[in-house]
């Protein structure tokens, strides 16, 4: 024990050096660089490096489009995340008991989660096509007449379209994690088949839920963070449109930086986002005792 715990003085630092160097190189250094830029008036076309004080940060508060994009992000999050969680939990219960072929079924269900989000978005773009896509066709069967819904353009349908795609891709993620968590709970408590409804709910509320809570909260944290930075699916489906209706904070930051070339202002937005996230994540990590 003593030999392992007291290494040759610098060995443990040599081990960690390359990783820390790389994280500083592409993590911290660019941040410091852009912190400096955020106090200037640099655009991609003009390199005015004179000190501009807090101009860009003041502008944040007057930028309605920015706060709307934050609102859009939260809207998607508060709808998609609970659905993914509840649907994932229900699916986990469905597959909890042994059944022949379970392994195969579970692997098939998990496929959406491992494909690239941009491919998922592209796939749903094809599915949602108003004329040649199967979704309108299927809806048309039920409606009894052709339905030419413009899912990625119609203001009333773009959010459902994005949220469908998001739920389709990430519910399996929740499902898989919750299935594993439930499998670790004492079987007699989770066997819904054997006990009546009221007792099932009571045991779920007081025994099962506390048991899976640590894992569940990590899954919620991971998904919550992913939803906060949602970009790929939206880029593929609507690119933020119509107008700026589905522009999330990530899409807006991208547009400011790489379409409008507002370098200094984009840097300020990035810092706003980082500040918001740092507060939330630090709180969540302490709260959940993730830091051990």
């Amino acid at each position, binding site marked *: 024990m003593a030999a392992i715990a007291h290494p040759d003085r610098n060995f443990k630092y040599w081990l960690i050096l390359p990783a820390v160097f790389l994280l500083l190189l592409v993590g911290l250094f660019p941040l410091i660089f852009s912190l400096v830029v955020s106090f200037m008036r640099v655009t991609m076309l003009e390199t005015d490096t004179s000190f501009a004080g807090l101009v860009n940060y003041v502008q944040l508060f007057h930028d309605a489009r920015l706060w709307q994009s934050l609102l859009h992000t939260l809207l998607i999050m508060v709808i998609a995340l609970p659905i993914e969680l509840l649907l994932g939990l229900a699916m986990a219960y469905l597959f909890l008991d042994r059944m022949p072929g379970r392994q195969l*079924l579970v692997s098939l269900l998990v*496929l959406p989660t491992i494909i690239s989000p941009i491919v998922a978005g*592209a796939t749903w773009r094809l599915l949602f096509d108003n004329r040649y896509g199967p979704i309108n066709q299927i809806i048309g069967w039920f409606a009894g007449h052709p339905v030419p819904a413009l899912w990625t353009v119609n203001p009333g349908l773009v959010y459902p379209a994005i949220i469908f795609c998001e739920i389709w891709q990430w519910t399996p993620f929740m499902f898989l*994690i919750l299935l594993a968590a439930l499998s670790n709970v004492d079987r007699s408590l989770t066997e819904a088949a054997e006990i009546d409804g009221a007792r099932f709910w009571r045991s779920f509320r007081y025994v099962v839920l506390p048991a899976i809570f640590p894992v569940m909260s990590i899954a919620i944290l991971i998904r919550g963070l992913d939803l906060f930075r949602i970009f790929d699916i939206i880029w593929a489906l609507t690119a933020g449109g119509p107008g700026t209706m589905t522009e999330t904070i990530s899409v807006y930051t991208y547009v400011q930086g*790489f379409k409008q070339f507002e370098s200094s202002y984009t840097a300020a937005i990035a810092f706003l986002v980082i500040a918001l996230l740092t507060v939330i994540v630090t709180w969540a990590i302490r709260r959940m005792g993730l830091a051990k």
Partner: protein
Amino acid sequence: MKGAPFHRRKETKLVLRYLMAAFLVVIFVFPIYWLFAISFKTPGEIFAFPPVWYPKSIQFNNYAVLFKDGDAKTVGNSLVLSSVSTFFAMIFGTIAAYSLARFKTGGENLGVWIISQRMMPPVAIAFPIFLFYVWLGWVDTYIGLIILYTAFSLPYVIWMMRGYIEEIPLELEESALIDGCNRWEVLWKVVFPMARSGLFATAVFTFVFSWNDFLFALVLTRTEVTTYTVQVTHYFGGQSNFWSKIAAMSVLGTIPVFITVATLQRYLVRGISMGAVKG
């Protein structure tokens, strides 16, 4: 159902579960089926109204076009970037994880700082990195993206490998030290072999995360190292005649992921849950 014998009820229940399971599988797999189906369809079938539910014959013309135009090269770019960065991330990440697991280097703060790096939204980092890379001349180069993917994979690798390394009994390392191995030899001869399955599983997920990246590739590539995810979006702008290309390119980029994950089923849970559940 009150009077039914117990085993009957159980059977009905099983049938019901299968029905629900089948329904779910259809819902979740159909979009992927549709993507594959389009990639094999002829233009006439893709733009048929009402839609054609399956291609009449399997033809590879949509793929042939990608190879003829050189677009398929972007899958090769993805392959180079993802595998090289995974290789470096695994080496640097595992030795760092060993340091954290065994010597508590930097206390808990360093561990939390490392994991918090992964929680930052890529777009907030992408812009600063872009400015930095312009200055270095690293935009649209292999080295630029490899370094970026390596660094971005490190928190995941360190977090996962720390968990796997903590499961290795300390006695093995001690006896190796007593047998005259030096510290580095302990790493290569004891830790790496003992953590082999963890290394393998972590590497695959690291590879998949880099492989699926879109935002960094969009921002930091132009023409030379375009990845397949960016290439897929290049077909978006034009009118619907690019559908076959969208589908075929997506399938080319998806098959490698399906194959790797299929071979690694037993690590799936732990891999995607960042070790929250020991799979």
